[in-house]
């Protein structure tokens, strides 16, 4: 397909930085509203033919994600320490190709609940944290959740989860076929009096909007979908943006600076093209959708004499309040084969413990799901951390692969200022730009919630008749794919970076929309909310543009 291209000297209406879950949606919304768009992406543009079942390449060599050699990061768990180079696995892991993280996500598409937006008011403060309400409510976002379900494509069953927030429409597709893990999970949870339901997944259960139904190959998590059944931006909104004839997707284009003029307005972006030539694209406005790691990094790298501490950073909160969500898991081994390596990750979930319960003595809540482990390589590496780790007994555990499943638990992370993304003072990436430095330590309440949820997961597996149940150790996290909260939304410019419509408080023609916008972490499945925010942001930004209000 030949699509519109622009020259650097053309002043386009919008440059969007980042082509992932949020950037793809914003690009489509703006282009469909008649505006001209250049969508910049650090990584390459692949074709579905390139997507394979190569675990080593996709999980450990950064084929579709940032890799530790080209895009090195440092990590520490305390701001008083020197951060250490991560040699094998990035601390913050994200898609680095057209489609971004939506290429490799698992596609769990839970809506946030009403409580996620006003929990601070309901529960009161948590000392030492930046726990806060959102400047919008679930009701404000509901139409956009529905838009995600129908325009991106989500499979599920409405009206069966007693904990679901109100919805204006059912799902457009029936749930995916249940797996053995889902059957066992449903059986166990019901014995305990809980409410297991089919999982909402952004994966086609039937052909939808010109895309294929899932072929159950089993390579969703960490892989890009070969048949386009998983609803990445690459497979859904980006082709629709290009089809307007107004959006150019510019891959291998690494934006490292947002330029501003004396009036304090953004004039465009400076980037390295695929030949590492420095170029400048002019634009009337800039939208950064580069994810919760790269968005704050770009703002910090855009510091100038006018914006000494980084662009849009008068609050000092750019990069702060990083939230990962907690994860814990329990592995169950059963008598017969489940063959969990086939089909999608998750087919059943439980939300009975979604809300925080002050009676537990700590803040937090979450959801549980029945899922396969990862595919063989990562599964073997994990197995080595959960019992015998070498020798004959370990080998016997490896051979349990087809008879195992896990209950994965996803929980809240509190916003803590000392959990953050900054520029490493020494380390540079392969382009000579400052590397990401990550500082993170889970709040004790988050770890307590994670253990609480893990115990519920173990109960489900025991009730389902597992022969053996193994709890993976719950420990402070040093790595995540959920990159949230680092340019938070709020009404007060002193305590937030962007307003209710994603406009930065400091620079009128600069908008930020991605995981960095989130004020609270939700219960572990953020992409649905990131895309709902992106649809809402796209609609409002287009309106501002056409009314001359940018």
């Amino acid at each position, binding site marked *: 397909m030949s699509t519109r291209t622009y020259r650097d000297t053309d002043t386009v209406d919008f440059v969007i930085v980042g082509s992932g879950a949020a950037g793809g949606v914003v690009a489509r919304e703006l282009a469909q509203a008649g505006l001209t768009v250049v969508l910049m992406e650090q990584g390459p543009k692949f074709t579905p033919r390139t997507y394979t*079942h190569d675990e080593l390449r996709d999980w450990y*060599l950064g084929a579709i994600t940032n890799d530790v050699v080209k895009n090195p990061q440092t990590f520490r768990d305390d701001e008083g320490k020197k951060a250490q180079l991560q040699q094998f696995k990035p601390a913050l892991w994200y898609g680095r190709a057209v489609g971004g993280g939506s290429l490799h996500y698992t596609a769990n598409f839970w809506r946030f609940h009403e409580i996620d937006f006003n929990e601070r008011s309901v529960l009161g403060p948590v000392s030492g944290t930046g726990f806060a309400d959102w400047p919008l409510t679930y009701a404000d976002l509901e139409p956009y959740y529905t838009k995600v379900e129908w325009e991106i494509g989500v499979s599920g069953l409405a009206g*069966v989860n007693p904990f679901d927030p109100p919805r204006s429409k059912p799902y457009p597709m029936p749930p995916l076929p249940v797996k053995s893990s889902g059957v066992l999970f449903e059986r166990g949870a019901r014995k305990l009096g809980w409410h297991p339901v089919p999982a909402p997944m952004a994966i086609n259960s039937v052909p939808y909007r010109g895309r294929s139904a899932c072929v159950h190959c089993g390579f969703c998590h960490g892989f890009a979908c070969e048949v386009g059944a998983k609803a990445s931006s690459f497979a859904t909104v980006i082709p629709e943006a290009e089809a307007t004839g107004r959006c150019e997707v510019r891959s291998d284009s690494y934006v490292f600076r947002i330029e501003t003029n004396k009036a304090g307005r953004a004039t465009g972006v400076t980037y390295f093209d695929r030949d590492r030539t420095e170029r400048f694209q002019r634009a009337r406005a800039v939208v950064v959708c580069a994810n919760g790691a790269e968005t704050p990094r770009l703002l910090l790298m855009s510091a100038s004499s006018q914006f000494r501490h980084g662009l849009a950073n008068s609050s000092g909160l750019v990069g702060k309040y990083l939230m990962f969500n907690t994860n814990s898991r329990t592995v169950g081994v059963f008598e017969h084969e489940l063959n969990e390596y*086939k*089909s999608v990750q998750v087919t059943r979930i439980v939300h009975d413990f979604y809300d925080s319960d002050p009676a537990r003595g700590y803040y937090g809540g979450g959801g549980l799901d029945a899922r396969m482990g990862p595919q063989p390589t990562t599964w073997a590496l994990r197995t*080595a951390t959960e019992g015998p780790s070498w020798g004959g007994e370990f080998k016997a555990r490896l051979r349990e692969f087809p008879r195992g499943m896990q209950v994965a638990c996803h929980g809240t992370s509190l916003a803590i200022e000392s959990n953050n993304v900054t520029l490493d003072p020494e380390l540079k990436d392969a382009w000579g730009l400052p590397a990401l430095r990550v500082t993170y330590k889970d709040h004790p309440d988050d770890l307590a919630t994670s253990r609480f949820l893990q115990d519920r997961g173990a109960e489900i597996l025991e009730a389902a008749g597992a022969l053996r149940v193994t709890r993976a150790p719950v420990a402070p996290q040093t790595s995540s794919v959920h990159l949230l909260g680092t340019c938070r939304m709020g009404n007060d410019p002193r305590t937030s970076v962007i307003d209710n419509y994603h406009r930065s408080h400091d620079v009128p023609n600069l908008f930020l929309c991605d995981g960095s916008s989130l004020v609270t972490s939700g219960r572990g499945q953020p992409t649905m909310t990131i895309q709902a925010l992106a649809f809402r942001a796209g609609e409002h930004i287009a309106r501002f543009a056409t009314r001359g209000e940018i």
Partner: protein
Amino acid sequence: MDSANLSRRSLLQAIAAVIASAATPIGWTEAAAAMEQAHAASLEGGDATISFLTTAEALDVEAVAAQIVPTDEFPGAREAGAVYFIDRALATFFSQLAGDYRAQLASFQASYRERYPAAASFASVKSEQQIEHLRSIDETPFFNTTRLLTLLGMFSLPAYGGNRGGIGWKLIGFEDRHVFHPPFGYYDRDYPGFSLDKAK
């Protein structure tokens, strides 16, 4: 570089570009090069070769790998060719680990010699003695890295040098296919469909 087309021609161009720019060798391109090498070796009918490790090092690493996933009535790391994967990894796509690993391996060998001065090498002694020694060092960086690479070698695509003939996948019952149909396993065979009536 448009990595979409990994034909041999564009691959060679990509590698040439990386070398020309004197950039640090990186992830996918390197991996693809390693796959090409393995593929070429299999086409030529030659054995995979050891290029990074010395012969003595390779024998010791293979012996450790063979204790991590031992051979019993089913094949283990030795039959899967894990050491060839490890060697290729250190020479190419995990070259960032190579310097540290070689030093860790040297200290492993030194610790072994100190404990058993009479033995020619770790690889040359009986399995029981190897196990006894490994029990005392199985939390060292050397052992952890060897386990990591052994498991990657057991289960990654055979094109990377290990998992020969899909031995690792067969061992654990993984089918390498791109399309499956329900039912997937034993427990979803007779599932009657989701119903709220079943609750309680």
